[in-house]
């Protein structure tokens, strides 16, 4: 099903691979497509980021140039947004991991003997994918609005200050990011844990490890590929997201993330160089993180 | 679609100077081989010896680096797999999981637009006694049944040559023995040429008229099973096909009919007619069941070799026979199989014994005696790597 994309990360193939012109035929259309509509746009973005405003031009008119100052300008202007983006994304990723691990363990290990139940739980995990991303975020906005049942009862119980808000705060944005990307975390974790051979755990207990040590020394290392895939699949979209942080959704003007300023600069202000420079910065930081992460923890072959 | 004529009986298979090199290693080296029409021919060897590669070359699933493949005198080296009058029973059976048993069997017939495929497929299933399971999916059959379907799927096409790649490897011992006999009788029935690849020496000997023993990409020896067994030509064959006691030493005297070696001070005589080399340092051997045990020094005359005294270090009773491991100082351990004609072992661990055999039972081997050659089992990392590549 849909989650196969995440659950199929590392099947080992032992096929004797052949050299043949057929390979080229099979690869060419798709590779060409990606070069044209993925790689070329990145290059275009790179050059857009260096453009200079057209003399006496209207808004949105730029000439090619090598205006590296665009980068320092956007960093000076949007440093808080950049830092906020990565801060929010990291916290949301950690929350999603803590939320998902026990859930994935329940589905992948505890429910192994009951395939029907296991299948049903997997469907429930991906169920949020089937309802519009924007609508489920708006649903939270209304469920957690100031006048909502949950918030008013928390206030009545004095668990929340009477004048406190939830929506529009950083906490709400992080909450939204974590919620929306939880399936991206749970599914790779599930795949790793599903494959976990329980005899290793038994061997661990046999060799005098208590349950906590077994978990720390055996379960966690063996599910590391899932942890890596899950954290990346959660962190990347979270860092670039601008829906949750938007003021019409869970955010407020002071929770704007880098995605919001890219959107505003590109689509509203038509300041394409600034949007492009911010995009390149976001992309570069993510690539560095992915690179370091993958190198540190192995799992070279992510695809 | 194809107008190619398919033989009613089998056709000769001829390999001429076939070599196959993969990245970094040679699987087959200058192989010449003739498999006569109608024969049941076995290629026997350890994994990694090149036997499966040979089979795949004949099937057209692999192209030779050099050399030619001929079937019925026609050169098919550059013919595609699907155009060759050859069918294969794969080791994993390779039954199509999305088709019924019947659809599997019909597959080849339909590709060639053979008239009346349904009746022919049912007939083939009848031959392997599975007509009642025609509508099942392969996954619903037992291993033995799947094996039969694979066989039916191949022979229904009446190929000039049927290739069997370890066809019984996945079955348990009892079923394997039964299928060996069945396969042989089916071969006699249909009169096709069978080329059978196996690493099971007993299977090869039970089924085949001719066995070729392969090692490291070459054929070491070829012949009828009993010839190979009684008169192995190399250390490898002596050890791969059954077990052997081997001795190495210089020839110290010879007559018109026999050679005598000095092996660590013991004299061992072999008939000249049964030796591959007559001078210098040579290796001779004798099968364990040809040895007799004596509890006191025997006096047997010149037509027997006697070694002793030694000490029994291990006795294992296996019902039909008893295996003794006898340690003779300076010679090492000898293996002796004795039939259980009486009750129980004739001597226990620690007993002092002598070992003898008739001179006529010994054989002299062609190998250059070197310490490595004495241990024929090739378990070097390279060999294992090749074996894995071959199996994959």
């Amino acid at each position, binding site marked *: *099903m849909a989650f196969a*994309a995440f659950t199929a990360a590392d*099947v080992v193939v032992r096929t004797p691979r*052949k050299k043949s012109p057929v390979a080229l035929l*099979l690869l060419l259309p798709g590779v060409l497509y990606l070069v044209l509509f993925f790689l070329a746009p990145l290059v275009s973005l790179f050059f857009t980021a260096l453009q200079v405003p057209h003399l006496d031009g209207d808004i949105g008119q730029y000439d090619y140039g090598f205006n590296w100052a665009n980068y320092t300008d956007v960093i000076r202007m949007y440093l808080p947004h950049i830092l906020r983006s990565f801060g929010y994304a990291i916290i949301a990723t950690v929350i999603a991991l803590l939320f998902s691990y*026990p859930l994935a363990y329940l589905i992948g290990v505890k429910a192994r003997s009951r395939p029907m139940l296991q299948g049903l739980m997997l469907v429930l995990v991906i169920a949020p994918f089937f309802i519009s991303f924007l*609508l489920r975020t708006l649903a939270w906005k209304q469920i957690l609005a100031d006048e909502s049942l949950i918030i008013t009862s928390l206030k009545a119980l004095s668990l929340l200050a009477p004048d406190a808000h939830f929506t529009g705060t950083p906490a709400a944005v992080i909450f939204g990011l974590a919620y929306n990307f939880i399936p991206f975390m749970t599914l790779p974790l599930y795949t790793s844990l599903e494959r976990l051979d329980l005899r290793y755990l038994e061997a661990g207990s046999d060799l005098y490890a208590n349950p906590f040590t077994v978990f720390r020394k055996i379960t966690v290392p063996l599910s590391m590929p899932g942890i890596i895939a899950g954290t990346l699949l959660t962190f990347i979209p979270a860092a670039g997201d601008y829906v949750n942080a938007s003021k019409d959704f869970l955010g407020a003007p002071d929770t704007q993330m880098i995605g919001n300023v890219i959107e505003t600069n590109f689509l509203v202000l038509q300041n394409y160089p600034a949007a492009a420079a911010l995009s390149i910065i976001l992309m570069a930081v993510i690539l560095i993180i992915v690179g370091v992460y993958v190198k540190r923890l192995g799992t070279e072959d992510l695809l | 679609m194809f107008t190619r004529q398919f033989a009613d009986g089998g056709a000769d298979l001829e390999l001429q100077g076939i070599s196959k090199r993969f990245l970094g290693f040679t699987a087959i080296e200058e192989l010449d081989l003739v498999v006569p029409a109608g024969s049941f021919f076995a290629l026997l060897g350890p994994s990694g010896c090149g036997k499966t590669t040979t089979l795949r070359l004949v099937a057209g699933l692999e192209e030779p680096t050099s050399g030619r493949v001929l079937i019925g005198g026609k050169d098919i080296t550059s013919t595609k797999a699907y155009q060759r009058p050859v069918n294969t029973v794969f080791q994993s059976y390779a039954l199509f999981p999305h088709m019924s048993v019947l659809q599997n069997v019909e597959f080849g017939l339909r590709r060639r637009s053979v008239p009346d495929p349904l009746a022919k497929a049912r007939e083939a299933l009848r031959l392997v006694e599975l007509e009642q399971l025609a509508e099942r999916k392969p996954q619903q059959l037992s291993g033995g049944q799947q094996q039969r379907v694979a066989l039916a799927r191949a022979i229904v096409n009446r190929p000039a040559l049927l290739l069997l790649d370890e066809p019984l490897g996945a079955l348990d011992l009892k079923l394997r023995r039964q299928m060996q006999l069945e396969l042989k009788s089916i071969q006699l029935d249909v009169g096709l040429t069978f080329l059978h690849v196996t690493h099971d020496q007993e299977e090869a000997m039970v089924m085949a008229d001719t066995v070729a023993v392969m090692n490291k990409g070459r054929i070491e020896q070829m012949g009828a099973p009993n010839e190979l067994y009684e008169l192995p030509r190399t250390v490898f064959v002596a050890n791969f096909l059954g077990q052997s006691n081997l001795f190495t030493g210089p020839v110290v005297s010879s007559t018109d009919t026999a050679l005598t070696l000095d092996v660590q001070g013991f004299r061992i005589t072999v008939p000249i007619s049964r030796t591959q080399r007559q001078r210098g340092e040579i290796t001779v051997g004798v099968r364990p069941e040809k040895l007799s045990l004596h509890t006191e020094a025997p006096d047997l005359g010149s037509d027997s070799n006697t070694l002793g005294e030694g000490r029994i270090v291990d006795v294992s009773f296996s019902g039909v026979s008893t295996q003794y491991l006898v340690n003779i100082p300076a010679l090492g351990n000898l293996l002796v199989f004795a039939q259980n004609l009486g009750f129980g072992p004739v001597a226990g661990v620690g007993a002092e014994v002598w070992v003898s055999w008739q001179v006529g039972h010994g054989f002299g081997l062609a190998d250059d005696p070197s310490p490595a050659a004495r241990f024929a089992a090739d378990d070097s990392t390279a060999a294992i790597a090749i074996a894995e590549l071959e199996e994959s």
Partner: protein
Amino acid sequence: MSRFGFGKWLLPVYGIIAFTFLLIPIAYTIVFSFNDSVKSNISWRGFTFDKWLTVCQVENGSVCEAFGNSVIIGIIATVLATTLGTMIAIALVRYRFGARGAVSLLLFLPMATPEVVLGAGLASQFLAAGVPKDMTTIIIAHTMFCISFVVVTVKARVASIDPTLEEAGRDLYGSPLQVFWRITFPLLFPGILAAALLSFALSFDDFIITNFNSGSVQTFPKYVYISAARGIPAAANVIASAVFLFAIIFVLVVQFSRAARAKALAKH
């Protein structure tokens, strides 16, 4: 852990709470598709079926139009991405070629690139090339980000097919094309179907990339985003709920028919 009495129950109880949490906004969205709202659909005003029956009459049918666009875009992008991705997946598993590393990287990068960068990049390229934004540019964008997901999904399936099945096909007189259509494709089909469903889901629900490359074309997510500021009509909830119910029923049927088939196979 099992020494403690509650250890056994801890995980299942957690599971129930976690699933409830995951499903809350879904339930909310569905419930509010039955809300007898006037303009914005924020507070509960009573139950009605009206919104389901009049879904295409709201705002001159703009919700339905946006939905229709999303479906068309989703179908075309799915067909394109699934075809291109499947071809690449087969090449990756079955063939040896130079630049394998480069190809893998090219496939991995789109998944590691935030959507906002993909969207802005493509938009700046269209801008530079003077291409007007319409349905075509949305389809181009969606196909692009779906390809990698298709490759990952189908690749696993290709790898699970025993290559000797294809060899057996060739051995049994099947030409390369016959072997592909009669053996490889049927065996690959579940993977291809999964990839297609995933592509459609990704395309249908995409907002960020679409927002950069759609010009004046409305898609369903775009419609929701734009109306979020002024209040979303219940018609949007109706559409989302209908899609959700359709998808969930489809998935459950596939899931359970597969389980039933496995059971039937095991019975013999």
